[in-house]
């Protein structure tokens, strides 16, 4: 317990978390601090490219082992199956209707790349290395949860997935950028990294701070506007589901034989909830579902929880399971 508290304290006073807290506080206090939409998207593109590229370079340096395919497959399975658990848990804890429960469940099967970045940052601070291909695992975990959600909703009825939606889900911009940058990093390796390191290395933490400031603003505004939307059961779900997801992720990591860093990242992926790819797909396929419910839960409850408390907890749990403490 003392390890978790020490790590959580160190994590909370890091610049990236404090930037998120600043954004959250500014939005809740109704400050006029805002990020232009184009600037937020540019920051997001930079972060996705940088993390994808670094992952590819890491794989080029360490080589591919047999665990790559198994870990990718595990990621797909986790993303596809976690929504079933989330759906059942949400229906148990709250009186949410099927449509909204399924929409929320999809968010918890998919992933938050910013939570992944924050976890990677914590690992870097502690000089813990992770398998470079965890970036690719993050990419493959974006979409399967959406398909599970649409199956949950259309059981016994007409399908909600058409060719256009399927293409949008699988070729979502963040997936293309993450995988593309990963492949570029893999192909060009250390030499490629040497050429662009000043751009994607040193500024990374600063850009992440600004991005988290923006995420804090969005989360704070969402919480302010959605006051009263979530009941106690849904709020409990927003905290309990990531913990359950992380434990399942840890189980998978142990079975796969991942390193401590890789295990923490897989736990984070299984624990995090999407707020970019899945909400967009839900607006197209499930317009009846209330975005205030799923966005408030994923961005206003689970994201801050993972960022402040979750990541240190997952790190300590993985350390006990894998070894490291």
């Amino acid at each position: 317990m003392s390890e978790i508290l020490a790590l959580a304290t160190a994590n909370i006073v890091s610049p990236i978390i404090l930037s998120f807290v600043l954004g959250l506080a500014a939005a809740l206090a109704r400050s006029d601090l805002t990020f232009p939409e184009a600037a937020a998207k540019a920051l997001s593109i930079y972060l996705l490219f940088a993390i994808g590229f670094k992952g590819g370079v890491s794989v080029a340096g360490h080589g591919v082992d047999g665990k790559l395919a198994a870990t990718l497959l595990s990621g797909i399975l986790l993303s596809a199956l976690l929504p079933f658990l989330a759906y059942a848990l949400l229906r148990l804890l709250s009186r949410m209707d099927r449509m909204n429960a399924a929409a929320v469940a999809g968010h918890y099967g998919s992933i938050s790349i910013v939570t992944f970045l924050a976890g990677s940052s914590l690992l870097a601070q502690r000089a813990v290395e992770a398998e470079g291909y965890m970036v690719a695992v993050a990419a493959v975990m974006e979409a399967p949860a959406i398909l599970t959600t649409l199956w949950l909703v259309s059981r016994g009825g007409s399908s909600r997935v058409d060719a256009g939606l399927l293409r949008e889900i699988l070729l979502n911009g963040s997936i293309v950028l993450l995988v593309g940058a990963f492949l570029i990093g893999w192909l060009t390796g250390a030499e490629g990294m040497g050429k662009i390191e000043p751009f994607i290395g040193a500024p990374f933490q600063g850009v992440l701070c600004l991005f988290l400031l923006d995420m804090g603003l969005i989360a704070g505004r969402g919480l302010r506007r959605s006051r009263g939307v979530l009941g106690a059961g849904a709020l409990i779900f927003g905290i309990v589901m990531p913990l359950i997801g992380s434990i399942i992720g840890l189980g998978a990591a142990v079975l796969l034989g991942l390193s401590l860093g890789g295990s923490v990242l897989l736990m984070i992926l299984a624990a995090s909830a999407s707020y970019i790819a899945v909400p967009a797909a839900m607006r197209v396929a499930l317009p009846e579902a209330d975005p205030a419910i799923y966005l408030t839960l994923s961005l206003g409850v689970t994201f801050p929880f993972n960022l402040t408390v979750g990541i240190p907890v997952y790190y300590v749990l993985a350390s006990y399971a894998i070894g490291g403490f």
Partner: protein
Amino acid sequence: MQMHQAKRVAIIIEAPMRKRLEDAFQEAGVTGYTVVPVLGGSGRSGRWSSEGQVGLSGGMVQVICIIRPDRLDQLLETTFDLVERHIGVVSVSDCEVLRAERF
């Protein structure tokens, strides 16, 4: 100057639906339209703003087209299925254009 009667159709719709709406316009034979970004607003689904948004889900766009009055019904019928279940506003207003052959 000779002016010609036309209809101006303005549809404010969720950003993720933009591509589908454009396809519906094409299907209805409307090849000229303009997509306008919108900053924020408020409606039955509450307040929203595009500020700081990374994904498409929180944003809206406005698609505007000007057509000949006799093409209005076909356009509305084609787009109705698409916009019916989604957040947004469909409005039609009278306008005048200079070069009728372009619409």
